[in-house]
């Protein structure tokens, strides 16, 4: 039987890490992810994990130590937010190219500047092309579940890539919700042992990691890395199916909510999906054909599946909680429109809203503004403004 609890997203993440019992956790405090290493340090202090906790002097060293630990043959984990993730930047790419399945909790926060501690996705969105798998979480439960699946995905021999589980800073990281936890033994059995084929601590077969890789081989290695990211999609689906059999909780590449006969659909990431679903319910009660698509897997990007799913709608709004400053829409929007174009799908009218930057509250009436606009587009077929901002004072 599952254990019913009430936990914040950070505590749920830390408990997942405790149940996973990694070899090394190296982390540095930064709001709003600080609680994760705090909780974890208390598990170490109480002897309830076997982990070496490395209280590093920066996020740069956190990721550097994780790379050393994972290459050594251990499981390494960390947690960070915003500028902490930015300070790791250089190493994110090295972790991915070295094919080290490090797992990180990314508690999304607005990236400076100006400095702001509240939620948006500008931190993780900047890391979208770093070679990390990115899973996003609407709720505390999803943050916990994604963390339990993380190692199975990252460490799969066809993948061997680092993975970040993202959730919204404060909104889920600090809010306490009901949650179902798995028993420790079930987590242990599900996650399994990490037995890498090659590792530094294997004295029988020493290896060298991190070469100078010049014109003759670099390109092939990057292609292999790209293939691994492609392979990750099937592995994510397989692991999610196994997790469903264990828990009854179903996860795919994205979640479709009331989209079956929908004309107007909002596509978005993380906790605002909850608000959108609430508004969708109200609109449905009024007979309006609206739905929600919530992206869970952003890297690898489910290009075929998302294009197929969107093909049946008349109007789609992609909501980005990060700006790209490219004068052409946010990152999720450009990925989605690119997917539609590449698949030759020109039916749905697609617009973009940048929303919620720096933790600007997103209320039900903000979502209503989007649905009203979409329903108008669906009815008239006319599209006047593609790139929009939601809830900002002009």
């Amino acid at each position, binding site marked *: 039987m599952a254990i019913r609890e009430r936990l914040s997203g950070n505590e749920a993440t830390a408990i997942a890490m405790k149940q996973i019992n990694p070899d090394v956790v190296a982390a540095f405090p930064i709001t709003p992810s600080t609680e994760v290493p705090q909780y974890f340090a208390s598990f170490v202090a109480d002897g309830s994990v076997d982990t*070496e906790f490395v209280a590093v002097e920066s996020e740069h060293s956190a990721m550097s130590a994780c790379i050393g630990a994972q290459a050594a043959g*251990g499981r390494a984990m960390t947690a960070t937010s915003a500028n902490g993730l930015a300070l790791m930047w250089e190493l994110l790419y090295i972790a991915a190219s070295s094919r080290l399945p490090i797992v990180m909790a990314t508690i999304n926060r607005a990236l400076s500047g100006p400095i702001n501690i509240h939620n948006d996705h500008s931190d993780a969105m900047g890391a979208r092309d770093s070679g990390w798998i990115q899973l996003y979480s609407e709720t505390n439960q999803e943050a916990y579940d994604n963390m339990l699946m993380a190692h199975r995905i990252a460490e799969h021999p066809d993948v061997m890539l680092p993975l970040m589980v993202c959730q919204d800073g404060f909104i889920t990281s600090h809010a306490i919700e009901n949650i179902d936890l798995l028993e420790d033994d079930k987590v242990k059995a599900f996650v399994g042992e990490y037995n890498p084929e090659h590792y530094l601590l294997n004295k029988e077969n020493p290896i060298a990691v*991190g070469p100078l890789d010049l014109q003759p081989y670099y390109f092939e290695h990057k292609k292999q890395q790209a293939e691994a990211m492609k392979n990750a999609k099937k592995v994510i689906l397989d692991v999610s199916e196994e997790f469903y059999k264990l828990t009854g909780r179903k996860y795919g590449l994205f979640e479709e909510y009331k989209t079956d006969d929908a004309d107007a659909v909002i596509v978005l990431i993380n906790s605002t999906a909850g608000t959108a679903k609430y508004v969708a319910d109200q609109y449905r009660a009024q007979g309006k054909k609206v739905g929600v698509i919530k992206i869970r897997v952003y890297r690898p990007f489910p290009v075929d599946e998302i294009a197929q799913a969107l093909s049946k709608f008349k109007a789609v709004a992609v909501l980005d909680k990060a700006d790209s400053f490219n004068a052409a829409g946010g990152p999720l929007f450009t990925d989605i429109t690119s997917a539609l174009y590449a698949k030759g799908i020109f039916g749905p009218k697609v617009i973009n809203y940048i929303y919620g930057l720096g933790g600007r509250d997103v209320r039900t009436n903000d979502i209503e503004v989007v649905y009203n606009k979409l329903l108008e587009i669906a009815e008239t077929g006319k599209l006047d403004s593609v790139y929009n901002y939601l809830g900002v004072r002009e």
Partner: protein
Amino acid sequence: MAYNVKEVAQKPDRLTGGHRMCAGCGAPVVVRNVLKALKPEDHAVIGSATGCLEVSTFIYPYTAWTDSFIHNAFENAAATISGAEAAYVAMKRKGKINGETKFIAFGGDGGTYDIGLQSLSGAMERGHDMVYVCYDNGAYMNTGIQRSSATPKYADTTTSPAGKKIPGKLQPRKDLTEVMANHHLPYVAQTALIGNMKDLYEKSEKAIYTPGPAFLNVLAPCPRGWRYNTPDLMEVSKMAVETCFWPLYEVIDGKYIINYKPKNKLPVKEFLKMQGRFKHLFKAGNEHMLEEIQQEVDRRWEALLRLAGEA
């Protein structure tokens, strides 16, 4: 065990030949002699900062390292090796590995005194059982001889060129060995390529086999950057020591021991005149700069004598 040069010389090299370091470079000599101090039965996980050493010894698909080796980035060799050491502790506790593994990080002065100083300081303070070896050649040699905080005053480098108005680097050299001694580590030492390598070998052995963090600063002359004749590697190294530009000493649990005091301390110009990077100091009218360097060397030597209770 007393140092026996024949026995040590017969130990197999753990950094093999065929790497691409320059002739007359001190760095691979430092590495080979540090690694000789490992017990043959012990495995090592060795890290290197980005730099000449890394890009010349591990060019895919070749490696000159017979132990396990990891290069991560420029500024994080210490943090990287600290993570590997942490994994070792955890995996040993879980019974997943057995036998002894030692952890050694190498970095040049750029990767150690400058961009990697934070990572080094953090790893040492956290008390990992590891050795950090700085091979100090006094500039960013890999990128083409740019000044670092280890570059001596008035040295001519590509970012502190000796020009018509400015006579090379204007700032004195950072004393990193003292910075590390003030981390209160179990073992800190400064050494060089001298004689039959007894000093380097013995300090390496102490650094590797003293439990906890240890730091070695080894002067590693660079023929390109210093502009000396490549066969003169050992001679230029010797002059650094005989002039007390680079004293040999160690700090064991806070106690300073000077390992070599020249009977006849030579003027620093004997060291400087062998090197093209100081050529401009020997022009007429620049005597005051030589005098200033001499005063700085004397001041630092006397301070060291006081720390060791010998003045």
